[in-house]
């Protein structure tokens, strides 16, 4: 016969060991991470994530961006991420210490987004990309996210963040396409994705 205590004991000891190693240990050991303060410039790394960008977490999650985009740069020995200019150094744990909701991703059906805020600093670029990815690559497999935008009549002056659209995408005369609050927070989040500060544990890769 098989005693229940043996099965339960086995689960607790053998399975519990993996729980300790992969859940409890990271939880405890990463809780005490401290930001790096440059002794000369007093610059804090990593910087705080702006509040509006934090609101973008749930838009990124809701639309499943993580299905196709990863958010970590591997060491040069592990792949060509750095050669592809997706970052000039590998990602380390401290890079995420101020991120409440992390979307690492295991699929690269599109480019890595770890440093997309370094590559593109213009919110307008992101808006147009989300509205119609075909503007940038006619062969793209990225879906468009038009429900993050709304078309409205131009009241007096056109809105400051109205999308610059031409051709088939352009709204009718007297109308403009503007991002919703969701799109604004998503783009703020994407703009905040940049690991362009130095950390001593991750020196910049050499060419």
């Amino acid at each position, binding site marked *: *016969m*098989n005693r*229940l205590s*043996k*099965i339960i004991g*086995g*689960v607790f000891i*053998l*399975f519990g*060991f*993996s*729980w300790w*190693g*992969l*859940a409890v*240990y*990271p*939880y405890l050991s*990463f*809780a005490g*991470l401290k930001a790096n303060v440059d002794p000369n410039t007093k610059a804090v790394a990593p910087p705080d994530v702006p509040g509006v960008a934090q609101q973008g977490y*749930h838009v*990124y*999650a*809701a*639309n*499943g*961006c*993580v299905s*196709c985009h990863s958010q*970590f740069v*591997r060491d040069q020995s*592990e*792949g*060509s991420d750095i*050669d*592809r200019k997706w970052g000039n150094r590998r*990602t*380390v*744990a401290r890079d*995420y210490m101020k*991120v409440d*909701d*992390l979307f*690492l*991703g*295991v*699929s*690269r059906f*599109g*480019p890595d987004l770890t440093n997309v805020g370094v590559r593109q600093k213009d919110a307008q670029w992101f808006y147009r990309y989300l509205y119609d990815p*075909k503007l940038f*690559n006619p*062969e793209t*497999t*990225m*879906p*468009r*996210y038009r*429900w993050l935008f709304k078309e409205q009549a131009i009241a007096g002056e056109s809105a400051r963040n109205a999308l610059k659209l031409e051709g088939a995408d352009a709204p009718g005369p007297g109308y403009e396409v503007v991002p919703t609050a969701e799109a604004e927070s998503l783009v703020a989040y994407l703009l905040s994705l940049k690991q362009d500060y130095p950390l001593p544990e991750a020196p910049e890769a050499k060419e």
Partner: protein
Amino acid sequence: MSVPNQLADVRSDQVATGVRSVLRAPILLFFFSGLFWLLVAGALWLLSAFQAADPFSAWAFPDVPWLTYGRVYPVAMDLLVYGWASMIGVGAAIWILDSMAENPFGGPYLPLLAGLIWNVGLVVGVWGVLGGGSTGKEWLEFPLYSAFSIWLGEIIMAVWAVALYIGRRSKDGYISQAFLLTAFIAFAWAYGSANGLLQIVQVTGPAQPAIHWWFFGCLVSLWLTPLGVGIVYHFVPLLVGRPLYSAKLARISFWGILAFGGWTGITQILGAPVPVWLQTSGIVATVLLVVPVLAFATNLHLTMKGSFDLIKPNLALRFLVTGGMLFGLASVWDAITTFRSINRILEFTLAVPARTYLTLIGFVTLVCFGAIYYILPRLVGRSWKYTKLIQLHFWFSMVALGLLAFDLTIAGVIQGFGMLDPQVSMAAVIDLIKPFLQGYILATLLIGVSALLGAGSFLTVFVNPAWAPDSSEAPEPVINEEVSLA
């Protein structure tokens, strides 16, 4: 010994010796639910495949937010796991644990309640993720209210299973009981812990990947695997009319899967900012896991030896044995591709989901259907009317799985080498694998068809009023011979 060569070879009086009739309702509830979710998952998966190939065609619903790829595909995968595989596995576990326990007190109400709560969790989960409430964590997308329902249903089943086991009359233990009880306890722990830490406690960012992918390893290796292995260990000896070949190999497979399974998930994100020793432990565990899995596959082979002819007429056995053997293959493939030299090519490519599908669509799904084809006629006391339909189902499943695995693995290798060369732009890499996305659509279409064939076969039992013909001379055993863990 003469072996029954028909699928359904039992009369209703034998049903009572297999499982008590009071448990008919909960088992049927879990089976019907599982098949329903399989069909939903298949439809959504097919849609997501269209979207992956061309997100702008009218087929892809480009401007419907709740049908965008990033919501549809995760829901399809979650339903495959938490809807289809889990619910069929639980239904089969009710049968197995009850038939081994000979406990007259295990009532139907707790499993019925668990099944209802579980379904509620899935419905609100699908609603939540499609509606934009996804957590954005792969395999854990269901928002808290949904995950809690599923977890509660699972806890109720775990309590029921342990209580049944404690009150059992038959003291002969068998290895399938150990696997199923382990699955119930480990999954309750893993799913509760992962959702609790990531959604309630909201641990700091750097700790999230380890917890998240620890859970994925548990989901596959300590929930779906022990359910599937327990089912195979239980029904194959009964169907070939011989005891399990080796108790020792069975023990190796049990303790090995329990020891290594929890560490394997972290290999999905090698190179991520997770302590290197944890990543290396994951690689070592994935390689070591081959030992217990091959112990299982060898045991299965030696139990079957001399009786392989039976898989021709006996379709339940055919599904179970094929599924079990595919598990061996999947585990070896996991181990090969986890080495850093190979992983650096295949990581992030379509070869990674292909690897998961080999376990999920190959091993788990085939074993689930094997369990259905064994249990259902015995449960309702009717025979399968259209065995040709089940044969068709089997061959459709095999072709679909083969196409899916080969197509995505080859695409993944091309994608991997493309991404390794920084001169090739990402857009060019995707252009290279576009032809394979057509094969992917075809594969998901075939999977949908085979799901329909399976569900159709399931229903034919209910339109056939005939008792099964009594083709066996000796009655089939209903209890396995003892295999203890000591």
